[in-house]
């Protein structure tokens, strides 16, 4: 299967106002290049604030990236005019994290579901049919169509969010932590629904999450993000069985109840004393050190001098760390 999306060196800088604000922006996403294969689920994991959501939005040109390019099915999104881009968005949609704030409280479920199609100027009859299909598809009774979001439970709202994203027949969905606000029993329902829909319509997902258990269950390929950069990317099985980057190892070893809790040596932040961490943090600010240097138990002089770039370990398994040998 070919690639659906290719991003090249996407960088997103948020600039603040005030003196020097435009000079020293905050780099939320830093030179991220990824390819997502057709009909696959690509997982993006990282801790809060690492730039996962920003990347997802930049990818869809909801917040256009500061530099870099996104190629979606041979169309470069950056070259589209605003009008064309709007039109093109029916091929890519997003499901948000918080179902409570992503539905308009003043619009009935029917209105929310049909709004996208109104924008695409789809005739009314067709819209009605489609809305009825959609609500069946996500397992909600038709009697809910004329109710409002406050009358629905969290899980039901998230189903509506998914149905809305599907209303314009997209090929690609960005799922931005779609279950993090839901209970486990409801989470399983939503995850099963997403997998069913993917198989039925041949969809491609970018699955953004901080829950490694969930990502390793769902995704074909996983990229680990740290401070706006990809530090490791591999097929799920490879990443889970052979995590290479010290940050990935640390993430995996801190999954509660996860398989990695046993066996893998636990590289903890406690390995370094506070003084070293402070010194290294100062160092990081001033020079172009590896981003993980201040917390890395393997860090040494080399890491403090230059930031590593992504190198390939074995088929498709890339990692950015000086300390990992690529020799086969």
């Amino acid at each position: 299967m070919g690639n659906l999306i290719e991003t090249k060196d996407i960088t997103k800088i948020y600039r603040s106002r005030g003196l020097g604000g435009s000079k020293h922006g905050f780099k939320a996403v830093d030179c991220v290049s990824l390819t997502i294969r057709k009909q696959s689920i690509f997982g993006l994991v990282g801790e809060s604030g690492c730039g996962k959501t920003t990347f997802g939005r930049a990818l869809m040109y909801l917040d256009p990236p500061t530099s870099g390019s996104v190629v979606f099915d041979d169309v470069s999104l950056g070259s589209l005019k605003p009008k064309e881009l709007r039109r093109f968005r029916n091929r890519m949609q997003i499901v948000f994290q918080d179902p409570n704030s992503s539905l308009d409280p003043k619009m009935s479920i029917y209105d929310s579901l049909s709004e996208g199609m109104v924008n695409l100027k789809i005739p009314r009859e067709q819209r009605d049919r489609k809305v009825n299909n959609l609500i069946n598809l996500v397992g909600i009774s038709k009697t809910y169509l004329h109710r409002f979001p406050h009358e629905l439970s969290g899980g039901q709202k998230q189903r509506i969010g998914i149905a809305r994203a599907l209303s314009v027949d997209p090929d690609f969905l960005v799922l931005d932590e779609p279950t993090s606000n839901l209970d486990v029993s409801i989470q399983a329902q939503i995850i099963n629904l997403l997998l069913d829909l993917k198989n039925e319509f041949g969809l491609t997902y970018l699955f953004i999450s901080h829950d490694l258990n969930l990502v390793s269950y769902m995704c074909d390929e996983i990229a680990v993000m740290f401070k706006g950069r990809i530090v490791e990317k591999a097929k799920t099985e490879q990443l889970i069985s052979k995590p290479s980057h010290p940050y990935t190892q640390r993430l995996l070893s801190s999954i509660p109840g996860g398989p990695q809790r046993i066996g893998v040596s636990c590289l903890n932040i406690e390995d370094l004393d506070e003084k070293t961490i402070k010194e290294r943090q100062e160092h990081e600010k001033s020079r172009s050190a590896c981003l993980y240097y201040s917390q890395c138990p393997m860090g040494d002089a080399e890491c403090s001098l230059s930031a590593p770039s992504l190198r390939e370990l074995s088929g498709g398994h890339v990692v950015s760390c000086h300390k990992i040998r690529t020799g086969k």
Partner: protein
Amino acid sequence: MDRMVSLVSIEDLRVAFSFGNKEATVLRGMNLSVLKNEIHGLVGESGSGKTVTSTCIMRLLPIPPAKILSGHIYFDGKDLLSLSGEQMRTYRGRRIAMIFQEPAKYLNPAFKIGEQIIEMLMLHMKMHKQSACKRAIELLKLVGLDEKVIDKYPHELSGGMKQRAMIAMAISCDPDFLIADEPTTALDVTLQIQILALLKKLKDMKKLGVLFISHDLHLVSEIADRVSVIYAGRIVESAVKEDLFKNPLHPYTRLLMHSIPDAKKKGSRLATIPGQVPDAAEIGNGCAFANRCPIAKEGCFADIPGYVEYENEHTVACYYAGKIWEI
């Protein structure tokens, strides 16, 4: 459940909330006991009554709208529910402490961390300011914070540091019993594991009894010695951790375990529990789980099942406990 040996024991606690002229029973005969030097995990979905239980132990429930219909909470042989407000104050914070889900919400933003800890020490332990200050520094070091934190305001600390400061406050008066209400939900995974390690260390050091409340079964499996599963205001299963995870007897527990995704389940479908947690006002006479339960029979809807004890104090409230069916 013998209350002579257990530190805290809740017996047949029923709590209702009234709104308008409706009444919703949120705890429907809660039984739970926590031993000394034990971490007791309480797992349940949102709305199952976990937090009501903890606030009830602390006697922080607003009455009304809440109403305690019946039951006892014994702590060290005394029924907390029979104490006066004045008496309760000598327990709360002093012998029973609590840490919360969002540390940012429960630290006073207008006072330095040090001031907040010292206040506790001066009030409960009748310490002088200087010795309290010394003690506060010791406490901060114990939870892995720098002593400089004493002069910082809550907004200057990160989420993980705030939670550590909360823990320092909670253990400042050497409590016997600590309630941790989803203490790591607001934190990232790498911080979460550090906070868990800290709680474990403190438990071993001070022989604390801990009630660890969470919605995450994996998390509880990591830290607890004993686990109770709560559903719609009632414990449905309680056992030593290993027994519960190896051999869940209640259908709800079993389904919960099968519905949590991880790498091992990749490729297979997750088990789901149809429907959702029933509204507290709409639960009938029978087993609250009956209408979502794949193995429920007529009897389940008529009467609430009592507790049956299996070996190693594994108790279950289900007529068909231990029944294996294809998920």
